[in-house]
């Protein structure tokens, strides 16, 4: 069916590609551009593993068509750490507090928390915990993630 030429920026780098209309953004990022940090699991918007930032707002990349992201700026988990490998504060907090085990759900969680704690924002601990309802983690029981959130709260306060 219809093919579409799209151009978008991912983690500051310009990319282009031709996609079938039915290709999800998540699939495009992984299969055509190689950003495999974005994890696709349920592919119907429940698990949150595929969450990326599109034009500054986090979104499920399985619930958005790649063609819809034409002209957008996308940030995936690969775009958070600095060039020298220094972890983003959210990544550091997750690491410090054992906020992950198998790590499958982690990219989505990190993207959500990075968005919530972005420049000029001071989310409360409860707001961050509430946002975790959009992510399913089957390893940690969430306690490590909650500790990471507490650490982030004290850093931004």
């Amino acid at each position, binding site marked *: 069916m219809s093919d579409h030429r799209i151009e978008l920026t991912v983690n500051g780098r310009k990319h282009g590609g031709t996609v079938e209309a039915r290709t999800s953004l998540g699939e495009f990022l992984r299969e055509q551009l190689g950003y495999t940090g974005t994890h696709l699991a349920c592919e119907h918007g429940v698990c949150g593993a595929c969450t990326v930032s599109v034009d500054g707002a986090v979104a499920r990349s399985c*619930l958005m*068509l790649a063609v819809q992201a034409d002209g957008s700026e996308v940030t995936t988990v690969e775009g958070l750490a600095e060039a020298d490998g220094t972890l983003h504060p959210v990544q550091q907090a997750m690491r410090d507090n054992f906020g992950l085990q198998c790590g499958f759900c982690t990219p989505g969680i990190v993207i959500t928390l990075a968005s919530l704690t972005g420049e000029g924002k001071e989310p409360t601990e409860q707001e961050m915990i509430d946002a975790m*309802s959009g992510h399913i983690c089957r390893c940690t029981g969430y306690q490590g993630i909650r500790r990471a959130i507490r650490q982030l709260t004290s850093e931004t306060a």
Partner: protein
Amino acid sequence: MKPAPFDYVAPTSIDEALSALADAGGGATILAGGQTLMPLLNLRMSQPFIIIDINRIAELKGVTRASGGTRVGPVTRQADALADATLAQHVPVMVEALSHVGHYQTRNRGTVGGSVSLGEPAAEMPATAVALGATIEIRSSKGTRQVPADEFYLGPYMTVLEPDELVTGIIYPDWADGHVTLFREVAQRPGDFALVGMVGALELSGGTVSRSGIAWLGMGPTPIKARQAEAALLGKSLDAIDPLAIAELAVADTAPFDDHHASSEYRRTVGRRIFTRTLREALGLKEAA
């Protein structure tokens, strides 16, 4: 790729979208926020021939004051509506309800009009539109019509929308400044579909109820207007209101269903409880001894 193949167009004006809808002869699906449609596509429960993406139509976005009400463009993101100062001032209960729609991550894409026009019976936006007496503005290439929200919903995910029609606005009538808002829902976790919920508004003048609008979510095949309760409240002074008796009338209008989350009896029981408590708290009534 999980969805079945489809064509895709992204018109930039309402007229273009309407002619694409008309040309498709019923084979098209409108894509707004996609937070419900995309799962249906990925599961192949929906297999349209063509998707008409209305996200690039600027005239379908934003909140404006209309005469006697507030007009919300259907492609207004739920997250934007949640932070909108006009809505906070004029339609406060809608903002309260919005914080229960989906998750932080889905509200960034999900739209007010998408939720209103899908007609999920347990969703907050359809019930809010029904409770407040909103009007749904619908257009096709043949013309425009206005449908009261109360007459818009026919069943689960079924509305009066014809295949060639598009919702182009939702108009919420003004309620008097300082009106009383009612909202409460019970869900298993934040962001889950409500098992039971209620939403509404009351106007008081001189200590008596002068206007009432209340609807249930998750208590039947559509949002359910609590007509008997609304009528019983009208003209009552605060000290003459028996919240439990009003709640009984409200529950009498419902037709809840059984599913694997809750029985209809559970929904009635919890519904009666949250209705009583919400009314009592909103009106500052004491609990009966």
